[in-house]
């Protein structure tokens, strides 16, 4: 079964801006996929459909066999872990521990079982020692890691990250890559960081002008200079795709 199926998804914002024009994609369980595309391509809009925060104007989204609908929202939000771009938007509780506990507690966990889930999630991102600190006293990279832990604690079927490497220093960026690689979940990663996509994701999608413009092995897409140029994507200066 596929972790994620999106069929002919179209969406216009209330002010009339048409952001998605019929997106088709499917992601198999356990795959790590990069979602690339220029500013304004509709990546964030697409991501917000995956757990039903925005509702499709047209088309369908299916998560692990469950269609995203009003009556399935609770189940879908448990299965899709969304990590927002700004960790300050994601971490809203007074302490790291409370924040990580928020999702599983909404799902009904309490007591020792809740503690175990929270500590396990924090340990997976190496943040267990900081559990009782308030989020605003952490560094940006630490907050990003805690943000990942908040969704890991919900044991999601698919982890969706919006620009996870933005604003991280090189060491924090590498540490996050190690964490993501160590996880045994399906990952969809929105990013402008093409080398990061190459490093972490075997497959990539290019979203451009509200449709999927390319879908294939990351290495192959990034080697196609014409394709990249058509969609305003650029490799960093001096970056050459290393031999496999």
């Amino acid at each position, binding site marked *: 079964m596929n972790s994620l199926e999106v069929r002919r998804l179209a969406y216009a914002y209330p002010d009339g801006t048409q952001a998605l024009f019929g997106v088709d994609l499917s992601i198999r369980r356990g795959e790590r996929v990069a979602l690339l595309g220029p500013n304004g391509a509709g990546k964030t809009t697409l991501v917000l459909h995956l757990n039903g925060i925005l509702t499709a104007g047209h088309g369908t989204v299916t998560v692990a066999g469950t269609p995203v609908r009003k009556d399935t929202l*609770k189940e879908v*939000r448990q299965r899709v872990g969304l990590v927002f771009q700004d960790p300050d938007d994601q*971490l809203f509780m007074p302490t790291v521990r409370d924040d990580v506990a928020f999702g599983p507690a909404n799902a009904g966990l309490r007591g020792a079982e809740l503690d175990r889930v929270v500590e396990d999630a924090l340990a997976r991102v190496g943040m267990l020692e900081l559990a009782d600190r308030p989020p605003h006293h952490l560094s940006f990279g630490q907050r990003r890691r805690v943000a990942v832990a908040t969704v890991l604690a919900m044991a999601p079927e698919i982890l969706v990250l919006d620009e996870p490497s933005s604003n991280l220093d090189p060491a924090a960026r590498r540490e996050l890559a190690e964490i993501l690689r160590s996880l045994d979940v399906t990952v969809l990663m929105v990013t402008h960081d093409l080398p990061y996509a190459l490093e972490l994701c075997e497959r990539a999608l290019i979203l451009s002008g509200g449709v999927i413009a390319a879908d294939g092995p990351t290495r192959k897409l990034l080697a196609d200079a014409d394709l990249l140029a058509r969609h305003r994507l650029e490799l960093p200066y001096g970056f050459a795709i290393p031999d496999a």
Partner: protein
Amino acid sequence: MGAGHHHQLHLPGDSVVHRLPPQCKLLAVFAFALVVVATPRERLWAFACYALLLAGVAAAARVPPGRLLRRMVIEVPFVLFAVFIPIVGLGERISVLGLSLSLPGLWAAWNILAKATLGVAASVLLTATTEPRAILLGAQRLRLPSLLVQIAMFMLRYLDVIVGEMRRMRVARESRGFEARDLRHAPVLARSAGALFIRSYERGERVHLAMLSRGYTGRMPVVDDLAASARQWGLALALPALALAVWGLTW
């Protein structure tokens, strides 16, 4: 985004008072304040006993007296107000150190000062021995309106973020040569304040999305097991109970 100054109120410790569940302490302080306010101002002995009771709590909590006094500066406006009443007050006058003061004014000033001081001291003891977060959990536990508790919780969390945003906007203004020198610059500051409001509002929307994504349905899940034992309730409510006893004895 440096350490939030709002955490300085709390004095970490491990005393009996620190360990009491927050809802017990909240209720105790509230009941104590009620008794104090209900005490007629002429019963000087009662107020002295109330002060002694608080001193006892401070000693049990190992809050140094100096710290307690420094935290009480928020009371200063009341003090200033109280000082004026006897000077401008009407009625029978008496002469103190060559100053002619109104007697009813003196009683009114004493009434405000004594009650405010006792109330503030009790609150300072509460915040010194209870983390801000625990106070909110206690309020939730006492079934205060959930919306109010959530608002307070978000203020606690986002105060630093908003102060940081304000600072970044000021740096941005000043690096482009702006200096607020007189009233003519007020419109610029007003526009900045407007932008700050919109930024904060939009952040609120994004936070709400993040909460929905993790299954929020309008109520904060109560995760901490804050159940208080009868002994803990008894211990906490000893303060207002003793105050009530003083009130009765000085009748």
